[in-house]
């Protein structure tokens, strides 16, 4: 099992560019999440999904979009990148929610200049 994988590991974007962060899990988890982690801060939820075709906003969704066409994949799209989106992005998945641990991917470090 690879667990949760994310690509790319690092990326530098110019202001106004767009990109997609990829996330794949091979544990057949229904629940998937995208977080951002700013220096010295906790993880903030951007979007989550409870299954293929179902997504919803978290705490900080502005500037991002997601889709979930399969159980395995949960890509995060950044449109019109801004310096405020400079952060480390983590994808996570869980078998269930509330009383299940989340498994995290290795993260994508994004810099917008």
């Amino acid at each position, binding site marked *: 099992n690879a667990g949760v994988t994310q690509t790319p590991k690092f990326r530098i974007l110019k202001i106004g560019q767009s990109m997609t962060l990829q996330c794949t899990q091979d544990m057949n988890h229904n629940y998937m999440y995208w977080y951002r982690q700013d220096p010295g801060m906790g993880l903030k939820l951007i979007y989550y999904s409870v299954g293929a075709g179902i997504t919803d906003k978290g705490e900080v969704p502005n500037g991002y979009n997601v889709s979930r066409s399969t159980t395995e994949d949960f890509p995060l799209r950044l449109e019109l990148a801004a310096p405020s989106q400079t952060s480390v992005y983590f994808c996570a998945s869980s078998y269930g929610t*509330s009383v299940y641990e*989340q498994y995290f991917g290795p993260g994508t470090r994004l810099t917008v200049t």
Partner: protein
Amino acid sequence: EDKVVQSPLSLVVHEGDTVTLNCSYEVTNFRSLLWYKQEKKAPTFLFMLTSSGIEKKSGRLSSILDKKELFSILNITATQTGDSAVYLCAVTSGTYKYIFGTGTRLKV
């Protein structure tokens, strides 16, 4: 507003010391409290606590939850350099919400 507060923000100890990390919370519809260890990359799961007063143990690490006073502690005994990391506390509320604290940075 739901919140999770961890203390201290950071600490430095010597090898062999015992440390106690704190996590207090105010959330509606509490379901569970989780501890994670974050080294350079992704958080890795340590413990999940749902009931008061029941200690969870794994080697030199242990944790307990007090649902009346709304806090949890994570103890690490006989610390080693490999324990150096950021320790994150998260509380689940409702059906999908995992609320994370800012973490405690431990240096051994």
